[in-house]
């Protein structure tokens, strides 16, 4: 799908936030000089074309009571595939990336409680014989990320 100037205007505006009120689309449409129908139709097309990944409230994962931790390992080249298999087998591993560094494996653990994070990393260390470094989030800074559409 090809985006026109109005689609881009909508994407840029809606990354900044969406109102919480009875007629939010009407409010945004008026602000942008569009009709509500046109705004909804354009959003529907962009969603169908997967230009829009998600639309709605973004929740802080930790508000749900879960625990998360970024972890890294320095895995010797020769053992890499074996270690990948062991790490990925854990349901607590949400995503895992190979990265260009001596610490070449980076994954995120997601568990119900903080204690489980430690249990999983200890058990992975025993199983692989490698250290698992933990980088829990200390401060999350406000994110100004925008994709210029």
């Amino acid at each position, binding site marked *: 799908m090809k985006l026109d100037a109005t689609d881009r205007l909508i994407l840029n505006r*809606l*990354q900044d*936030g*969406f*109102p*919480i*009120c*009875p*007629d*939010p689309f*009407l409010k945004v449409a008026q602000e942008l000089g569009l009709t*509500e129908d046109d705004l909804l139709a354009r*959003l*529907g097309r962009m*969603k169908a*074309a*997967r*230009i*829009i*990944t998600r*639309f*709605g*409230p*973004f*929740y*802080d*994962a*930790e*508000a*749900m009571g*879960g625990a998360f931790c970024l972890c*890294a390992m*320095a895995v010797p080249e020769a053992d890499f595939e074996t270690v990948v298999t062991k*790490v990925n087998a854990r349901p607590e*591993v*949400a*995503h*895992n*990336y*190979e990265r*260009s560094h*001596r*610490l070449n494996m*980076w*994954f995120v653990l997601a568990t*119900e409680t903080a204690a489980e994070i430690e249990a999983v990393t200890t058990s992975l260390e025993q199983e692989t014989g490698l250290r698992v*470094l*933990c*980088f829990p*989030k*200390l*401060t*999350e*800074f406000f*994110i*100004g*990320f*925008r*994709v*210029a559409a």
Partner: protein
Amino acid sequence: MNIDATDRRIIAATQGGLALVPQPYAMVAEKLGLDEATLCARLRAMQERGVIRRVAVAPNHYALGMVANGMSVWDVEDGAVAELGARVGALDYVSHCYERPRALPDWPYNIFAMIHGQSRDEVEEKRAQIAELLGDACRAGDILYSTRILKKTGLRLRPKEG
């Protein structure tokens, strides 16, 4: 960040997204047996407390040409982390920015900032801009590019009961 059982039901009903209909909140409220004003008040309260970061559109940045990214990491003086971390996070090409503990001696870096761009060169340019912004408070930096996705599952949250 206290959330009660009703908030949890609201989270479960909206974390997949809002419907593209004129009254999306009324639709959620009806499904949950709440009135729309109560639902909106609770959503606003959760937003004020940071349980909801924002209500917004997340565009697919790959579809919009932002195909390159790198995890930049920085060793910033502890006393300057709060101010500089906030400035880096506010940049429009940084999608995540956290202070994390160092793991000495292996890992001296305490600020992590994910940089996005149209190309690897553009990511490197942005990285140079961040280095400049951090100035003398930054002792060292590095950038890690992902070379392979080894696992990717959704971080879909399962609200606990009650």
